[in-house]
C-alpha cells in the first residue's frame, strides 16, 4: 500500500481495508480521537497510528460486532454516539479508551446506521430528515452542536454523501449551486461538490477527515486529492496547534 505525502500537506491516499477503498466505512476520525475497525491488514491501522498517535488516541474497535464502524457511529470532539445494537463490552471498551471529555452514548434510534444519517463537525450537524426528535436533542446535548435536518442532492442519507470538518467540506457531485450555498451558510464552512475514489459519489465512505488530516481510499485520483487538499485547507495544517487550541478552551471551561 502506498501513501502519497508531500512536505507540507497532510493528506494520506492509497489506503485499503482488505482490498476495499472505503476508508470511511472502516474508520471514524475526529479532532479528539480516531476509531479503526478490527480486522483488515495491520497496514490500515498503522497508517492512522503513525500519523495520529502522538496527538490523539487511535482505538481499534467493532460496533454491533461489525467492522463498518464509520457508518454506524457519529461523533466529534465532545462525544460519540453509537447505535442501540452496540454491545456492552464495546461500549465499555470505548469509554475506557477515549479521553474523559468525550462522552460515549448509546442511543435508541431505529435508524441505527448513525454514520449514514448524521454528518457533523464540532459546531454543526446535518441529519436524516426522519431522525427521532429525541435523537436530535441528544445530538445537540452530547455533541454540543446545532442540528439541521437536510437532504443532499436529494439524498436523505446526509452522513454518506458529504464529509466536512471545521475548515471545509466535500459534498455529493450533483449538489446544485443553490444547495451548495445554502449548506455552506448553515455549516459556515466553504463547500465544494466532488467525488472520491475515482468518481464515487459516496463521499463519506471513501474518506475520513478532521481539521488537520485526511485519509483517502486508494482509487482516489490526483485531481480528487487536490480538491480535497484545497477545500479542507490541509496544506498548512499543523496538528499540535489545533489540539493545543482545543485543550486551552477546555481548561477555560473548567475554570
Amino acid at each position, binding site marked *: 500500500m502506498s501513501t502519497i505525502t508531500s512536505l507540507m500537506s497532510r493528506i494520506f491516499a492509497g489506503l*485499503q481495508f*482488505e*482490498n476495499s*477503498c472505503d476508508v470511511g466505512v472502516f474508520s471514524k476520525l475526529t479532532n479528539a480521537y480516531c476509531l479503526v475497525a478490527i480486522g483488515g491488514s495491520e497496514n490500515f491501522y498503522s497508517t492512522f497510528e503513525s500519523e495520529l498517535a502522538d496527538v490523539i488516541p487511535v482505538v481499534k474497535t467493532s460496533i454491533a460486532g461489525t467492522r463498518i464502524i464509520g457508518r454506524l457511529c457519529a461523533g466529534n470532539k465532545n462525544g460519540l454516539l453509537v447505535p442501540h445494537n452496540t454491545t456492552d463490552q464495546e461500549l465499555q471498551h470505548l469509554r475506557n479508551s477515549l479521553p474523559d471529555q468525550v462522552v460515549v452514548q448509546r442511543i435508541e434510534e431505529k435508524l441505527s446506521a448513525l454514520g449514514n444519517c448524521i454528518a457533523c463537525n464540532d459546531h454543526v450537524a446535518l441529519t436524516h430528515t426522519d431522525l427521532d426528535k429525541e435523537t436530535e436533542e441528544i445530538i445537540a446535548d452530547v455533541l454540543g452542536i446545532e442540528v439541521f435536518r437536510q437532504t443532499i442532492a436529494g439524498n436523505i442519507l446526509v452522513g454518506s454523501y458529504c464529509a466536512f470538518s471545521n475548515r471545509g467540506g466535500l459534498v455529493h457531485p450533483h449538489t446544485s449551486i443553490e444547495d451548495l450555498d445554502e449548506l455552506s451558510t448553515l455549516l459556515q464552512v466553504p463547500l465544494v461538490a466532488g467525488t472520491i475514489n*475515482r*468518481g464515487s459519489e459516496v463521499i463519506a465512505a471513501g474518506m475520513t477527515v478532521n481539521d488537520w488530516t485526511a485519509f483517502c481510499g486508494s*482509487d482516489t485520483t490526483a485531481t480528487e486529492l487536490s480538491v480535497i487538499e484545497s477545500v479542507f485547507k490541509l496544506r498548512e495544517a499543523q496538528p499540535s496547534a489545533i489540539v493545543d487550541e482545543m485543550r486551552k478552551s477546555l481548561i477555560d471551561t473548567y475554570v
Partner: protein
Amino acid sequence: MPRKPARHHRLLPVRPLTFSPFARSVARVATAYLVKHHMHDAMQQFAGDEFKEKLKNVDRQSESSEDEEFDGVVQADFAFFDPKPDDFHGVKTLLQSYLDNKQWDLSGFVDLILGQTTVGTVVKLEDDEDNGVFSIITALNLGRYKDHKCITELKEFLLNICHEIDKIGNLRSLLGDEAQKVGLLVSQCVVNLPPELLPPLYDALFDEISWATEDEHKNANQKRSSSTEKDEAFVYIKPEDEILHKLSMWSFLFPLQTQQVATHELKNYQLTGIVMAVKAEGISSFRQQLHALINES
C-alpha cells in the same frame, strides 16, 4: 389445494451484494426466487442480437418499505454491453474477493478488463440509473498482459495456492512460457442472476474471442470459482463450473478464506476454490452442454 409457499420465516433472506436501493430490491427478488418454484413458467423472450430477458413481474412499489413482506418479483430487462470505463465500480465490487483475501492491484485488473472493449460482456439493466453491474465475463490473454502488476500478483497467488505437486509444473508452464496461448476466463455474477443468461453470455464471449483472434488456438484457463465440497459430493455454485471441470485437462482445489453468502442447504459444505485448465478445443462441447443443462432445468 396447494399450500402457500414458505416465506421469510423459513428461509434466510439473501443479503444484498452492494448497498444501493436497487441491490436491496434485487436481494428481495432472490429471496422470492428461492421460494417460488414456478418461476420457470415465467415468460422468456430472446430478442435477436440483444439477448434480453424478461421475468414475470408484479409491482415495483413494494421496494419502498423495508419491513413489508415482498410479494412478487421485480421486472428486469437485462441487456449485454461492451465493457466501458463507467463500469469500474460495479465490476470492481463483483471481483472484490477474486483472489480470496489477498491484497492486490484489483483496480489495475479491472482497468485491464474494461480496456478490452472487443472481448468481454457486462450485464446490466436496460435503463438503470444506478448503472449496477450484475455480471462480468471476459478473457484476458496472460501473455499480452504479463508485465502488468495485477497479472504478476495473480500468477503469484495461483502458484502459492497450488499444493498439488503434480499439477504445479503444468500451472507454471501455462503461466510462464505458454502464457501467450493462455486466456484467463474471468466470470463473476451476482448470486441470484437468472441462469438463463449464462448460455448466451458464454456464447458471446467465445464468439468474440474467435473473431478477435481468428485462427489462433488458445488454451482457456478457468480461474478459481467457488465450488463447495462435502466428502465425495461436490456442489457447484456456478452451474457452468461442473461442465468445465469435466472437460478440463487438469484442475486443483484450494481452501477459501473469505466468507461467502451461505444458503441454508449448503451450511454443511466447505467453501473451496477450484482452478481448471481447459483446452480451447473443448469449448464447443462446453457451449452445447451448457445450453442443455440450463434449458432442461
